[in-house]
């Protein structure tokens, strides 16, 4: 869109002019502002989208709130900035947002050439295909030869799907629209035979379809998509804070601490729990935060299991299983280093 072109230009100008904006630690900057600016999706149900009352909901949104709770002790000292897939990294690079919680896949190229740093993964995903049920010819991804494929521009999925079709000597015709909502609209109207994206995103898109039951996600998962919050390269302290904000939610789940029972847990005699909740000080000072930082995260936002279930879990329209995102003890990949 013209607007986003203009926006990119503005970003480029900002990069050109700003002399010291990125030199100082992000934490001081954030504290001076009084709120954390978080880049989110804005159009993705379950990850980052305002509900009908205008309250932001989703896994990425809650990750952002956890960072605000860690820094300010108040999960509401936060400003969400919706960014499209094309705008997101430029938005982070130019300082428009302090942290990007926008279902972005961690890749080597983004970590190095784009000047980003990825924190702990908050959702392990993989790319899938959403197809209309009425097209009975499609049972597996291999049946998609010659299909018209709806895909978001500037994503890893755009590259993966091209790779997959090339690998299997199949032909495809991409339809590339920047706006998530416009792309979904085109797909539901039948402009494409298949919509491809991260499986979680497909579940979120299907949930807002006119008739969600008319669509199925194919069983094939063709890629690894570790979705992680990202910060600018070079500010290690800020990266540590973002990293441990996510890890604290995972650790809390492992320790059995929830937003409901946390005040009782304060009286716990287990050293691990005492250290985690700041009853025994040390962790907060090490990160440059208040000793109550982890307490504030869990108290105000919840542990990882809680935010997963309320954003994308079984009782939500997305109905996603924990799968890879279960704790390591339960056969998943969520694993936190010791908090000491």
């Amino acid at each position, binding site marked *: *869109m*013209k607007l*986003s*072109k203009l926006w*990119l*230009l503005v*970003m*480029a100008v900002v*990069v*050109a*002019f*700003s*002399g010291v904006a*990125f*030199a100082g630690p992000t934490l001081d900057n954030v504290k001076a502002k009084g709120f954390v600016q978080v880049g989110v999706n804005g159009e993705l149900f379950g990850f980052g989208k305002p509900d009908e009352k205008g309250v932001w909901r989703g896994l990425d949104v809650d990750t952002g709130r956890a960072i605000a709770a860690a820094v300010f002790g108040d999960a509401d000292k936060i400003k969400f900035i919706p960014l499209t*897939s*094309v705008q997101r*990294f*430029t938005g982070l*690079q130019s300082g428009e947002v302090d942290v990007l919680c926008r279902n972005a896949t961690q890749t080597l*190229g*983004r970590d*190095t*050439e*784009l*000047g980003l740093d990825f924190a702990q993964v908050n959702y392990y995903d993989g790319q899938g295909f959403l197809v209309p049920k009425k097209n009975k010819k499609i049972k597996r991804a291999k049946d998609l*030869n*010659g*299909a*018209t494929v709806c895909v978001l*521009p*500037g*994503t890893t999925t*755009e*590259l993966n*799907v*091209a*790779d997959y*079709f*090339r690998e299997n000597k199949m032909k*495809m*015709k*991409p*339809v*590339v*629209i*920047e*706006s998530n909502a*416009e*792309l979904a*609209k*085109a797909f539901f*109207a*039948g*402009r494409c*035979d298949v919509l491809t994206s991260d499986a979680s995103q497909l579940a979120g898109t299907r949930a807002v379809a006119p008739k969600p039951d008319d669509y199925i996600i194919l069983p094939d998962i063709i890629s690894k998509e570790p979705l992680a919050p990202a910060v*600018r*390269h*070079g500010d290690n302290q800020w990266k540590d804070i973002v990293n441990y904000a996510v890890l604290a939610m995972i650790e809390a789940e492992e320790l059995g601490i929830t937003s409901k029972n946390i005040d009782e847990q304060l009286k716990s005699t287990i050293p691990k729990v005492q250290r985690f909740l700041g009853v025994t000080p040390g962790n907060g000072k090490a990160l440059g935060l208040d000793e109550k930082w982890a307490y504030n995260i869990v108290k105000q936002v919840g542990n990882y299991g809680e935010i997963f279930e309320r954003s994308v879990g079984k009782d939500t329209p997305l109905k996603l299983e924990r799968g890879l995102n279960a704790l390591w003890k339960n056969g998943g990949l969520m694993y936190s280093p010791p908090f000491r």
Partner: protein
Amino acid sequence: MPFGKTAVSCIPRLSDKRHRWPCSFSSIADGNGEWSPLPSAVFMSSHDGSQACNDLSLNSDQRKMKKGDPVISTEHTAQRAAWFNDPKIRAILYQIAVLGIVGLLGYYLFNNTVENLKRQSIATGFGFLNKEASFEVGESLIPYSAADPYIRALLVGALNTIKVAFVGIVLTIILGTFLGIARLSKNWLVSKLAAVYIEVMQDIPILLQLFFWYSFFYDILPSPAEALEPLNGVFMSNRGLVFAVPEWHPAYPYMAMAFIAGCIAVYFMRRWARKRQEKTGQIFPVFTLSLAIMIGLPLTTWLLAGAPLNMSVPELEGFNFKGGLNMSPEFAALLIGLVLYTAAFVAEIVRAGIQAIGKGQVEAAMAIGLKPGQVLSLVILPQALRVIIPPLTSQMLNLTKNSSLAVAIGFPDFVSVASTTINQTGQAIEGISLIMVVYLCFSLLTSLFMNWYNKKMALVER
């Protein structure tokens, strides 16, 4: 005009007390054309002032000094002329200073950008252009696959922009001219319909129109399996418009050559016919004969080659149609949107151009016995075009630039491909500069051509 005012108001006052000022003014004015507006304003606006100045220039201090002490005065005047008060040198100095400041600012920006990118460890430079793009592009005029480098993907995008801009401009001019003439029609209904069209189309933002046409394609038209077939071999579905095209045959290049040969023959025939008419006054049936040559030659070639008639008819195969020519909904929506929108502006330009010609011209042309067609082609159009071309150029540029709205509806134009490239490589500054350079080239080339055409059409004074 502030200059004239100050000059006028100060001349009489100065003439009373300080003689040197107005005289140095007038002497500079006499010596240099650049300053002439000042004294000419003085001369024109105040008779007294001019007299005072003339008198003063005769009895100036300078001349007295020259007589009294020539050495000092020459030194004095030489100094002033060579350095500070010589307007030419001063102008150059100012220009150098401004250029220097702009240059320094540019250097600072460039340096700062590179420094910032380095600090954030973001890759810089155009090296990414040769890396594998590894994304597909929806439609392309040249063969392209995900294994090709970014530069080829960008070329595909640029060609798509040229395609939509070129076809769009041709259709816009045809439709716009038609509407402009309809707007002037004596038929009440035709003229009012054209007026309503122009007003409505001009007032709706182009982006909304594009969304409308795009959703028209995918919402209203059925899936390929249930495609509409309004004509034999033409299919309309939400995958676009597919129609049968003649299958490739070796005779076609020869037909194209025959057509070009026909065009050349027509060109020389017209020159000969004009010369003959100037000499003898006889009119040669140029138009009919031109048409016959331009159609007849390729047709004869086609017949000589055995009249190949094989058509590539689109057939439903798997998900989509195979064979034939496919016009995607994105391209169609973009083209229709741009043409309908811009044609409304062109119509107004054409109307203005025609109305700019005095009624007397037409009456005179008819009085000397020209046919209506000749009145149009020999009297009205050559004059109207002079008024029409410059604003038409800007509308053509508008259409080309508006084609970048393709991003919104998923047509892979240059901006769309470039912004994907920016995102995959993370090199926004390089990408944005490429976009700017490419659009600048498109616009300059269009302007260059139109300016050449404008010069050709301009009034030649004898």
